[in-house]
């Protein structure tokens, strides 16, 4: 017998077996790329999971496996969850894309949700957050508040997600402060607190008085605090333990509303494959409290921008905008389409340096 059929039969048998006993319990699985104690990416996804439990109580059962390497290990973990009767599985790292699609083929009855990817299937949805909206707010505050006109930016890897954030922050910093300059350091790691701390220190030593980070640890916050007079923004989680200085605001990944909505959809049978890219409007991207270290007028402008993005009247990538090489990108009033944004691999005009290849 073919494995696919075997798996399907097993899943079906299980479905029938459980149907009689606990039909009302929906089982939701989560596959995490890091430990739940990473204080950043995975930590926030796990908070989303806890929110699902809190919302539905006895009606759901959630399971998770942490620190799952991308590749065959993740495929096995997903299969195992599906075999074990999960109705809905969230796979929370870009590298789980192909494994998710593979497993989804074998379990047509189980719903899958893959974070940050682009491949969908009848039973696979993708979801991601428009973090660049939050970056716009950060850029604005950074441009207003920098005295040295040097903003340091710690990138992880040069991928579209990170480049989009840099562009968005730069555009909005430049808008309010034409003299602003961005210094970008690529850490080439997702997670290495010591290296992130070093990167922040280097940027501060080279004159940056604002540090933006696209890595998840609080190491840059601590480095900024040591230096004094440097502001930072929380990344992924609020990092409020560093408020009001150096952390003046933050971008928070809030997956809870989405996870709750999708679980609900599975429960009432209305689940459909969708491609979700939500931002501030839907609450997937939250702007952490802007602290008192930010002047009142700047705070007001930042909140106004946030409100404009929330009601859809403002798009962070609105023309006129040129690419770094000076070529035209967006005409006056034109906004960037999602396709270009999703695969963004160029800097906007004014940024120095090259994207490493």
């Amino acid at each position, binding site marked *: 017998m073919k494995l696919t059929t075997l798996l399907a039969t097993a899943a079906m048998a299980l479905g029938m077996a459980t149907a009689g006993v606990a039909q009302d319990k929906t089982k939701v699985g989560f596959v995490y790329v890091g430990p739940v104690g990473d204080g950043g990416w995975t930590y926030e996804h796990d908070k989303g999971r806890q929110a699902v439990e809190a919302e539905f109580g006895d009606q759901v059962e959630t399971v998770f496996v942490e620190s799952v390497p991308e590749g065959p290990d993740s495929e096995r973990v997903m299969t*195992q969850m599906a075999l074990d009767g999960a109705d809905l599985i969230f796979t929370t790292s870009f590298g789980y894309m192909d494994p998710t699609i593979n497993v989804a083929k074998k379990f047509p009855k189980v719903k899958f949700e893959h974070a940050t990817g682009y491949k969908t299937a009848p039973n696979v949805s993708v979801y991601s957050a428009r973090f660049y909206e939050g970056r716009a707010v950060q850029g604005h505050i950074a441009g207003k508040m920098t005295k040295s006109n040097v903003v340091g930016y710690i990138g992880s890897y040069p991928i579209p997600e990170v480049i989009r954030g840099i562009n968005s922050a730069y555009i909005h910093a430049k808008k309010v402060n034409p003299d602003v300059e961005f210094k970008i350091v690529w850490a080439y790691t997702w997670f290495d607190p010591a290296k992130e701390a070093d990167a922040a220190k280097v940027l501060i030593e080279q004159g940056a008085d604002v540090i933006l980070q696209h890595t998840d640890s609080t190491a840059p916050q601590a480095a900024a605090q040591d230096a004094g007079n440097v502001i930072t923004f929380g990344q992924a989680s609020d990092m409020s333990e560093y408020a009001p200085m150096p952390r003046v605001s933050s971008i928070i990944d809030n997956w809870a509303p989405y996870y709750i909505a999708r679980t609900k959809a599975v429960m009432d049978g209305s689940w459909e494959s969708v491609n979700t890219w939500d931002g501030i409007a839907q609450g997937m991207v939250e702007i952490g409290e802007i602290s008192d270290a930010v002047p009142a007028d700047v705070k007001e402008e930042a909140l106004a921008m946030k409100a404009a993005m929330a009601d859809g009247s403002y798009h962070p990538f609105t023309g006129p905008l040129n690419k770094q090489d000076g070529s035209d990108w967006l005409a006056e009033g034109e906004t960037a389409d999602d396709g270009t944004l999703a695969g963004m691999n160029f800097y906007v005009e004014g940024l120095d340096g090259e994207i490493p*290849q």
Partner: protein
Amino acid sequence: MIVLEKRPQPSQAWSLATPIVAVLATMFFGGLLFAALGKNPVESIMTIFWEPLFGEFSFYYRPQLLVKGAPLVLIAIGLSLGFKAGIWNIGAEGQYIMGAIVGAGVGLAFYPLEAWYIFPLMVIGGALGGWAWAMIPAFLKVRFGTNEILVSLMLVYVAEQMLASVSLGLLKNPEGFGFPGSRNFQSYASAYNAELIEGSGMHWGVVAALIAVIFAYVLLNRHMLGFHIRLTGEAPRAARFAGVNPARLILFCLGLAGALAGLAGLFEVSGPSGQITIDFNVGYGFTAIIVAFLGRLHPVGILLAGSLMALTYIGGEIAQSELGLPAAAIQVFQGMLLFFLLAFDLLTNYRLRLALKEVA
């Protein structure tokens, strides 16, 4: 007090019994750990050891044991030959990465051509990539006497940076919307290391691992070279008198270990994993060192040790998901298992004897 007395020769009985005793001890202490974390110890242990082999879904997990264990065994076999001869290659992780990069590069160079010779060429590329990476410490050791432990370890970090580089540049999927990572071999038939029988978990990497076990067994027991390897490890001076050329032995052992690690990388990237990504390597190269020692550097032992490690990985994942055990607890559990296996090995070579106050 208790004293240790070296046995004239290793005890056959104990060498078979110690792994069992060690596993039992791990079950006991692991159970205590799980109980301390508020889980049912019996259920936890059953989930880790029983579920993957005989549980409801074992039809799925058993093949997975092969998928998980094959790279470990393949790499460990290569390493064990070097270890026996006192050549310390601890950089198999780097050789694994380089094998995958070169092999995948060969395959992607042909894309989208479909031809029967692509996969064999990739296999050769993978072996050569790992071999070449291992030849660096080998050459430096032979030529300058440089310590191979350090060089091979350093090259792991270099290889990891290379991996990041090609994932973002050279081998990046041009149709991947700018995301890092290569094309997926699973949708490129000529380059795909598919399961030989669907659902069996048997891919070419598993076959290669089994062949490597047999090859190593024959080499060590029936061949002059194997004798030289053992002799060099046990009595380097005697080996020299016996006409062993140490330089050649170093080149052979490191080269073979590198080639096998490279093969493991190639079979992984073209099969179960499917693509080159920044985080492609998951530590097989380091775990294989442990596997080699758990298997007491014996080919059959390595086969068993690799299977046992694979079992704890898979069982551990099940326990995480079904019982909510944290990944860290599984890691501690694996650590315990290794400790006990290593510690009880003592009984194979030594006898415990109760002695009265020793006469000085």
